[in-house]
């Protein structure tokens, strides 16, 4: 395992070009092309803003403007859930590579995670624009934590992606199961509501890893004031490294079976 893990940096070039290919291929043939990466989150935000300001007006104290609050958590969630959904099937759809070419299979789920991370990054300018529009300028000193949050989410997501992609080869049910689990997970995480609204569920929020990512994003981008959630974030960071190693271990153990079972 350690030997294979040490090889990972050597696949930089491969990962880089596969991520680039993924992004290019996604919009190839469409008129707006790459611009969609901006348009999609923009539309999403506009729609949410309309719905939650005029139709289902959410006037909960402390999380106004609501659309902006929600968007701060939704953008990273979209990265997380799309990355997992994609990586669950990525070894199966990339079966040709695994069966016919000597190819480091772990590259495939990693590419899924990274490609979705790029989409997340492309959504950030939209978020920034709206923050300025609503004159909701976050604390610049706190923003130093922002890359840390992203890094923790990256490690956490990659660990899960490795685990899921390897297991899905043997248990195809995971793909369908996952879609439902993610829907549940989404509502169990304080993204469309603030965790302060449901104090009685504190325990459940605390054991949900994505809670701490969502709260971190919200505290950094939406709420003013000091970033108070950093201890949780660091703890999650440590746990994520463990998860990544565990995910990689399972992946490595099952690696030899991929070419036959895909």
């Amino acid at each position: 395992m350690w030997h294979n893990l040490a090889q990972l940096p050597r696949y930089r070039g491969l990962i880089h070009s596969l991520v680039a290919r993924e992004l290019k291929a996604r919009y190839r043939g469409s008129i707006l092309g790459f611009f969609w990466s901006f348009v999609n989150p923009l539309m999403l935000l506009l729609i949410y803003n309309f719905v939650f300001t005029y139709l289902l007006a959410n006037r909960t104290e402390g999380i106004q403007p609501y659309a902006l609050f929600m968007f701060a958590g939704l953008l990273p969630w979209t990265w997380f859930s799309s990355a997992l959904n994609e990586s669950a099937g990525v070894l199966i759809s990339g079966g040709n590579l695994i069966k016919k070419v000597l190819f480091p299979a772990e590259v495939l789920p990693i590419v899924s995670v990274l490609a979705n991370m790029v989409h997340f990054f492309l959504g950030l300018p939209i978020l920034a624009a709206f923050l300025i529009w609503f004159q909701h300028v976050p604390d610049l000193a706190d923003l130093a934590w922002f890359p840390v949050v992203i890094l923790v989410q990256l490690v956490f997501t990659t660990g899960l992606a490795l685990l899921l992609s390897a297991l899905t080869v043997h248990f195809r049910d995971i793909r369908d199961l996952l879609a439902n689990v993610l829907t549940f997970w989404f509502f169990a995480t304080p993204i469309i509501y603030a965790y302060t609204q449901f104090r009685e569920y504190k325990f459940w929020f605390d054991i949900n890893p994505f809670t701490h990512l969502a709260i971190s994003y919200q505290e950094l981008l939406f709420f003013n004031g000091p970033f108070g959630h950093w201890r949780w974030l660091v703890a999650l960071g440590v746990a994520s490294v463990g998860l990544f190693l565990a995910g990689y271990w399972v992946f490595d153990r099952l690696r030899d079976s991929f070419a036959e079972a895909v």
Partner: protein
Amino acid sequence: MIAEGAPAAITLDGVGKIYRRYGGRQFSTLKSALLSGSLVRNLQPSETFTALDDVSFVVPAGSTFGVIGRNGSGKSTALKLVAGITKPTSGRVAVNGRVSALIELGAGFHPEISGRENVFINGIMLGLTKREIQKRFDEIVEFAELTEFIDAPVKAYSSGMYMRLGFSVAIHVDPDVLLVDEVLAVGDEGFTHKCLDKFGEFKRRGKTILLVTHSLSLVERFCDEAVWLDAGRTRAQGDPKRVVGAYVTDVERQEERFLAATDARAREEAGEGTRQADAGPLDAGEAAANMFQAGEGRWGSGGVEISHVTLLNDQGQATHVFHTGEPATLRLQVNASRAVQDFVFGIGIFSADGVCVYGTNTEIDDHLADSLQGSAEVRLEIEALDLVEGTYKLDVAVHKRDGAPYDYHRLLYTFRVKSRVKDTGIYRPRHRWSFSGGVRLRHKA
């Protein structure tokens, strides 16, 4: 030739590969696996399939090594083991140097992006750096004959273009060891020649090639050594001519068994029960028309019966497989329940697509019937079976002079003619070329 004692480029040492059949477990789900705690145990195979069993060979660096065998004999598995795509269950596989495998051409191509971008990504997948690809890019595109189309998305390519590009990238990886799995059928004649030339160039530059193919002539012409795998085991190894010879002999033996079984089945289907009494006399034209319409079968009025039909080779052994130009004997065992004076024995040879290659009977050949009673044997000796390679079917019959059949066996017997010469048509006249004047040809070695 390869110098003795050249270092090994590929070593297989007692290699076995057992595939697990996960098939039975297809519907066992994660839930049940988790509930019964058998997640790990379930990954253990219940049924296995041995693809390779104790296979050993060494390919010296700089040599070209052929692997032949029937479908499912383990050739491709051996290649995948050498490529490192799968791991052996037992034994050891060692490879020295950079490997490039021409197994699935263009396996990593993405249909939506251009040929140019795909070349880069495919090259990186195969282990090149961006700079190396940049340097070889023009050569790759030119070799694939895709200069005009390189900026079109790959989904617009024909399958030939797709394969050519895949082949071109793989071969320009410039490996020390090239693994080739039956990919020479990628293009038209011209491209195939280019590929062969490229292999030749590889050989001259002292690179190692492991070639898995069904093209035996390629192995004979191209390889320094060959191995014949059969059901995962090594059947023969060494000089390609000898190995190919042994393989061909075995294939013929298999075909023989297969044809014998086919014949037996055809006869069974056309058995006694379906025999139709064919009353009225047929004129020649009508009979001929029937000949071309009727499928296989057996009919006649009875009285005289052809009980056994056997094809014999020059050693007098029953066979279904002949080589072009070999002598052949057709033996009919006949039984007449009552004495008859009006009888003619006839045979017809048909090609697989139903063309009558030759037909004759005793009357045409000036043998006039006197009497036939009890059991008898009729032999037709063919001095040389000058047919090109193919499968042929036989009609045999005994009938009256006016054509009314006693016993007609329509296309019930099959034999195969094999030839090392790939000439075409049906009939192979004995021939020889000669040249004079301002023309010179060389005989191929």
